[in-house]
Structures are given as C-alpha cells and as structure tokens.
C-alpha cells in the first residue's frame, strides 16, 4: 500500500466519487485547470471536463446557493471554499437555506462544502480560522473533520453520498504534514464514529483535526517521561458526534481533557464538556478540562501563533495537571 498525504487522499477520494457517481459536480475558485489553491483538485477537470469541474467567480453566497439548487434537482455538488474563513460571507445559505430545506419541504439537499481550515503556518487572522462550533450549532447540517489520510478519503465518500448538507473540514497543516498507507479501495465509514487512536488508563483526550496528531505526540512523550498512559479519541465526526465512544473512554479513565485549535468560549469543546458533565458526572475523578486557543484572532507572527495554538507540549502539561489533580 502506497503512503500518501492527507491532501492526496482527499484528491484521490474526489477522483473516486466522481468516477463512481456521474451526478457529482465540483466547483469553486480556481479548482479547474489550476487544481485549487492547495492542489486538492488537480487533474479533475482534465478527467471530468468543464461541465463537472469548474471555476467560479468570487461569490461564496452564490456558490452555496447554486449548490442548494443543484442538490435539490438531482446532482451532488461539492463546493470547495478557498479557505474556510470566507464562508462567513454566506452563512445564511448554510444555516437558513441548506440547513432548513429538508425539514421544511422534505426535499433532500445532498451537498458537500469542503473547507480548508486551521493554522500553524503564519496564515494570520483570515486564513487560519476554525469555525466548527458555528457549523455544529446549525440544525440540519452535518460536520466532519478527518485527521488522517484514510479517514479523509473514507469520510469524503460518505459525505458525498449523504443526503443532507455536509461541511467537510480539512486541515491545512495536515495537508502535507501527515502520510498514511492507503488501501486500493476505500472503506465505508459512517458519520458519528470516533476512532480510538490509543488506549491508556490514566486519562482520555478527546480531540479532532490537527490536534489529534499533537495529542499522539504528547501521549508518546508522556509515557516516556512520566509513565502516564493516555487514551486518545479522534472524534472524526463533530455532528453527529460519537457519544458512546466518549462515554466508554470516560468510564475507563475517569479523567478527560478536550483539545481543539478553535477559540475557547462557545467552542466545540464546550459541547463535549457539557455533554460529559451532564451524562458522565459519576464517572469523573477530576473536572473536565479544555485546552483550546484563547479568545483572540489568530495572530500572524510565528512567536505569537506558537503561543496561541495548542501543541503537544501544552497538551503534556495540561495532562500532567489533570492526572495529578
């Protein structure tokens, strides 16, 4: 099995779904001959033609509105945002239009929005955001966020074949920083299934996206340096999220740290913490902790972003604190 990067896995997934399903179309800014700002779509227009893979003007609201129109008339559009950050110009199309349509009319809206997100590369306040909490608050919308190449490919298949609008979050830092051996055929991977990346007895970290990798580093460092052994849960799907796996992990470690790269207040971690606090109260030996970015715009200068963004070292010290509580 060849090792491929996270972005290569997404690209491969796109080729696969478009080959298998002639009703899939893909569009966005510069996704055609150019292959997209990150090259996730390179070669697709060549194989599938301009009718199925095309560049649009810069108009995120029209892009999403057009997808709703297409999805309700027999196509399965995939829209690439150049950066997730730009969707704030068009959230009415997501929350109010796509998210309510099936509920109001019974008509399915199978559309996927691919949104490159996250920081760690000096992208500054407008090219680094993590907006998953906002998406997850929206009724009618599903949200996934893979952390590994195989999951990215498998979830992409699931997303495209789902009959509801799906926000497919991709992490830009992972694009070229993580590789994995990938089988010839994708595996079915339903939404709402977390992955237990490792099992330990001392605490559980619940995380997703780029922070999975940081947490795995932290877990390795921690066992070497202190002997503490950590369970790492990669949520993969944020809406729906896997309550059973979370409960089982909490039950077996009794201590929980939630880690994400998004802002603290009303971040997705608050939802997980609240859920655990409500449903696993008697299982906890220590308070549920959150390690997140602080409530400030994503800063540009590397020294500031380093301070801003959670990483394996910060996870290690938060875990030591939690375990020694």
């Amino acid at each position, binding site marked *: 099995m060849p090792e491929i990067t996270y972005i290569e896995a997404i690209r491969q997934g796109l080729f696969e779904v478009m080959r298998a399903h002639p009703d899939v*179309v893909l569009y966005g800014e510069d996704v055609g001959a150019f292959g997209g700002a990150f090259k996730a779509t390179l070669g697709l227009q060549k194989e599938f033609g301009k*009718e199925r893979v*095309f560049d*649009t*003007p810069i*108009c995120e*609201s*029209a*892009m*999403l*509105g*057009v*997808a*709703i*129109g*297409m*999805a*309700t*008339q*027999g*196509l399965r*559009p995939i829209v690439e945002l150049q950066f997730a950050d730009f969707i704030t*110009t068009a959230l*009415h*199309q997501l929350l*109010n*239009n796509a998210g*309510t*349509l*099936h*509920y*109001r*009319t*019974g*008509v*399915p*809206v*199978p559309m996927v929005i691919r949104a490159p997100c996250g920081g760690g590369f000096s992208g500054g306040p407008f090219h680094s955001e993590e907006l998953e909490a906002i998406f997850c608050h929206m*009724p*009618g919308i*599903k949200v996934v966020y893979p952390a590994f190449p195989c999951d990215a490919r498998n979830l992409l298949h699931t997303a495209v*074949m*789902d*009959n*509801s609008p799906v926000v497919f979050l991709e992490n830009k830092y992972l694009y070229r920083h993580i590789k994995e051996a990938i089988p010839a055929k994708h595996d079915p991977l339903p939404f709402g299934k977390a992955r237990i990346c490792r099992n330990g007895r001392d605490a559980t970290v619940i995380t997703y996206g780029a922070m999975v990798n940081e947490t795995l580093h932290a877990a390795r460092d921690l066992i070497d340096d202190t002997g503490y052994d950590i369970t790492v849960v990669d949520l993969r799907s944020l809406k729906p999220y896997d309550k059973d796996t979370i409960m089982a992990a909490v039950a077996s470690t009794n201590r929980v740290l939630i880690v994400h790269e998004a802002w603290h207040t009303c971040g997705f971690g608050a939802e997980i913490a609240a859920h655990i606090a409500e449903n696993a109260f008697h299982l906890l030996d220590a308070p549920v902790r959150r390690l997140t970015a602080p409530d400030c715009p994503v800063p540009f200068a590397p020294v500031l972003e380093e301070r801003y963004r959670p990483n394996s070292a910060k996870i290690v010290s938060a875990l030591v604190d939690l375990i020694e509580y």
Partner: protein
Amino acid sequence: MTDATSITPSHRALNASDAACTPVNGDKDRYVGMLRTMLRSRFTDERLNRLYKQGHITGGVYSSIGQEAIGAATTAAGQPQDLYAPLIRNMAVHVGRGETVLDVFRQWLGRGGSPTRGRDGNIHYGTFSHGVYAMISHLGAMLPVVVGGVMARRRLGVDAVGFAYIGDGGSSTGDFHEAINFAAVFSVPVIFIIENNKYAYSTPIAGQFRCERLIDRAPGYGLEGFSADGNDALALYRLVHPLAADIRAKPRPIMIECDTMRMRGHGEHDDFTYVPPKLLERYRARDPIAVASNHLKAEGVLTAAEIESLTQACQAEVDLAYRTAMNEPPPNPDTLLDGVYANA
C-alpha cells in the same frame, strides 16, 4: 421572435406593449388561464386577510394584491419543466404553477397537512413537483438557488428555464449581484423578474437605489434588460413567452423590470399611511384583474358574462378550500424532530 436578433438589444428599455404580438385567439386558453390565476390569487389573499383579522392566522399576512399579473403572465409563459422561485408577492406564481388553493390555506393556517407540514408558514413554501422552490426570508438568497436548479436540470438533459423574482428592495442585497453575475458567466437561462412595487416595507425606491430603472443594471452583467408594465398580464405574457422560448434555445439570463405597486401594507399589520394616496389611486385604476378583463372583452376572447361566471367559480373554489383547511388538524407535535436530516 424566436430569433435572438429580433430582441431589443442590451440595456434598451422595452415596453411590454412593444413586444411582437401573437394573435389573441391562438392563445385563448392561456389568456383565460391567466385571468383565472389572478382571480384565485386575489380571492385567496382577500380571504387570508380576513382570516388574519379574525385571529385564525398566526405570524402575519403578506399579500400579493395588485401584483397578480406578474405571476399569472410568467407562469403562463413557462413550461412544466421550468423552475420558479416566488417571493413574498407571488401568490399568483403558486397558483399559476398549479399548486392548489387548498394547500395555500393549509400553509397559512399551519395545518399538519400543509406543504411544509406546519413547520413553516405563510409565504415560505413551494411544491417541488410543480417546480416551485420554497423561499427563505433572507432576500436575494433564492436567486442563486434557481440558477443552480436550472444548471442541474440542463446537465441532466432537461431544457429548463428559471423564473426568479425579486423586489425593488431585494435588489440591494449582495445575493442579487452574485446570483445574476453567476448566471451570466455560465449562460444559465434564468429570467430575473424585478417587481418594482415602489416600496420595501416603508422605504420608497428613492431610498433604495439611484439608478433610473433597475434594468440599468442589466448591461453590468452583460444581459439584455426589459421594462414592462407589471399590471398588464396579457402584454407581459406576450413579452415573456417568446423570451423564455428564446433563452431556452439559446441559454442566457435576462432581466425584466415590472412596474407595479404594492396595494396593501407590507403585511396586514401595517396601515401603510406612508404611501401617498395619489400613488395608490394611480395603480388602483390599473388593477391587473380589471386590465386583463377589459382586454379580454375588447379582444373578444371572453364575454362579460363568461368573466362573471369564471369569477364566481374562483370565489367558490377559494371559499370551499379555506373552509376545508379550517377544519383540518394542526401538526402532531410528536413529529417535531422528524426530517431535520434526510434519510441517508
């Protein structure tokens, strides 16, 4: 007028009455159909107003009174495979596309059997099997949806045309611009129908834009733009019908601005004292139902007696429908969470 070259060129205003005139008798059914659509629409609105005042309708009532010609003509000009995105003043689009008046009352009354199963109310509905999108409130947001719908149908081999409606007020939204430009770039055959009814809620058009006519925006997208009398259904039909055929064959969007007037408040809660009575009078004299009736009589399509019996039939239909809907049950609250997501 199937030849594109006979269409008045870009950014020239064209009055509907200038359009090539199809002989009246050849289209008799369509003409009668338009009058029927307007009557159904009007009587339905009148009944809704009453039901609202009687406290049967929650939320609010927004009526299309005075603007029925636009929906009647543009639905008559389309074909079954076409897609429509009506807005707040488009009762006539709903009934013109064959949605039943009974469903309309179910919708406004929030009945369990309404097109939205009571989940949404008033104007926020549409029947997909009739090619009618269910609007959301955010003005402008439906315009790109029609564009995408038509793109999809065409890709799947159906020669659909789209009819997208927007008010003078809605023309200030970013979505108006993005959607029309998108349609232009991809040559999507959508007719953008701007219903200039002089007001956006309480704000007159002088507070909305500074161009002379809203179709002055057409050349900025590379589109042809047409001005039409929005209160003359027959003339509007004669403009739109050949245009729809033309863009169906040679796909591209176009823009039509209809001169009309909102004859009620924004909603029935609004006494619209901010509208000068003179302005209302001017348009009251051009009530679209009267205009069409007079045309049909003058052109020998219908007699006064025939119009009278059509009127009574429509009134009876509406009366029966609202009484039926009134007796239907509300939705079962246990269904609250059904259908937030589609089945996978």
